[in-house]
């Protein structure tokens, strides 16, 4: 590290300058806080999975990271700046379920939206089309570029949305339950795609999918009003506890975790 600093002359890409840095962050839509005193950081290249019960603040945290909401208290920075200023470095993948199934649009048209920042008016440039087609290739959908979105399966739609995020050439990828609407039969392939992406960018995703967490995740952030971080891989015993905790999240969210019971998380 020292030698780098001397030879480069440039300020080093300080490895402790995390890509995401939240400190004492609080937020509430009303007076009641959804997130309270949240501090965590994500170093470059890490894959972090957010788990937690419904209403625990995962979506709110995602929106804060996207700069769609302003933190009430504390600070949140991405790439050393405010989320709103760094949107161009962030790729966002919402859930595919959200969209109007009758909307007349093709896969390629959607992926091109990832290049909107480079478009003032008129048509997309050739370079944008190339980037979009490359992104579709990255998720294995190059052959379906001209298919209507409504013709695609749930898994393919989710891939299209990932390709759209990739088309903007992000350094940080945010995904909201990417496997929520995917059949088990294609999930393995889907995880492979994400594992490939993990090599070249930092990933933060909301997920309840245990396979996804164990294949992709470097660590887990348990979000329920406050946050608790766990590193992966963990000891067999702890994994069991966390995973049983996650299962409980899925089956028993509203009762146990909504009451702020973090017993399954507090074992570090």
């Amino acid at each position: 590290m020292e030698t780098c600093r001397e030879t480069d002359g440039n300020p080093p890409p300080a490895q402790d300058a995390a890509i995401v840095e939240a400190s004492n962050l609080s937020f509430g839509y009303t007076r009641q806080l959804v997130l309270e005193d949240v501090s965590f950081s994500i170093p470059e290249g890490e894959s972090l999975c957010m788990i937690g019960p419904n209403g625990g603040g995962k979506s709110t945290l995602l929106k804060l990271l996207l700069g769609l909401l302003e933190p009430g208290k504390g600070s949140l920075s991405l790439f050393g700046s405010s989320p709103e200023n760094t949107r161009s470095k962030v790729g966002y993948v919402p859930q595919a379920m959200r969209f109007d199934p009758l909307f007349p649009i093709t896969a390629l048209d959607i992926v091109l939206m990832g290049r909107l920042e480079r478009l003032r008016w008129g048509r997309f440039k050739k370079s944008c089309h190339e980037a979009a087609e490359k992104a579709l290739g990255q998720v294995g959908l190059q052959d379906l570029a001209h298919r209507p979105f409504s013709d695609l399966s749930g898994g393919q739609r989710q891939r299209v949305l990932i390709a759209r995020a990739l088309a903007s050439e992000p350094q940080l990828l945010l995904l909201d339950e990417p496997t929520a609407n995917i059949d088990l039969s294609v999930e393995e392939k889907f995880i492979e795609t994400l594992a490939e992406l993990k090599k070249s960018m930092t990933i933060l995703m909301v997920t309840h999918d245990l396979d996804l967490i164990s294949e992709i995740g470097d660590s887990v952030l348990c979000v329920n009003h406050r946050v608790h971080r766990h590193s992966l891989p963990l000891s067999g015993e702890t994994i069991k506890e966390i995973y049983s905790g996650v299962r409980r999240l899925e089956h028993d969210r509203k009762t146990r975790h909504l009451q702020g019971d973090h017993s399954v998380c507090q074992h570090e």
Partner: protein
Amino acid sequence: MSEFLDAVQNIPLIRYALLAGIVSSFTFGAVGAFVVTRRIGYIAAAIAHSILGGIGAAIYFSRVYELPWLTPMLGAVIAALLSAALIGWVTLRAGEREDTIIGAIWAFGMATGLLFIHYAPGKAVSLESYIFGNILLTSRDDVVATVVLGAFVLTLILLFYHKLVAVCFDEEYARLRGVSSKVYYLLLLGITAISMVLMVRLVGIILSLALLVLPAATASRFSRRLWVIILLSIGLTLIYNTGGLAISFQLDTPTGPFIVLVASLVYALSFLAKKVVQKR
């Protein structure tokens, strides 16, 4: 048919009506496709009804204060844009339910229009031509206004097509990619408002929504690409407007209702046609 062609050559009124019908088809087809895709038909209808308020106010104030420049067309454009802005503002702020404000503007526009027209001095105003439209009342100025407004709307759509589509499809993501979603949503409502003004001139307030929505709805049964739907619905509107004018002239029936009747029948038939295509 030859009777109609003779009329087009010899009677300026028929010529103007035909010209207005042809020119506005392009605007209606394109805007209609967006309205159907984004599911804002009822907003368009509310704007159409609010136009009567603008027309009434323009007639009243121009007569009372002798303002010859304050034409019903100008009043209509102002009222339509104001309604679009108000609906857009309420929707974006989400302070009130969207359907409530749509209903309120709808009725308020009609009520103020009727009152202004009632109290306007001078000769009685024919409400019927505004409510049911009368394409044969098209003047040379109307044709010019149709061309100018139509060209303006189409230019905006051509320039900002991808951004409009992105905002319609996924408003949140568009915002993350630096597109001001609010501005483009308001732009969409604005061009819808201008289309409704042209539409009311042609087929009247009551029938306007049908002519905006039906061609696009028919077209969207046969394609799942927006630009194809736009082209198809422009084509259909062209056929309805010109064919409707010619045939209704020949049969001596009111033009607006005839156009809408044909558009509705074709829409209904498109269900059957689709069924047949799918069975093959």
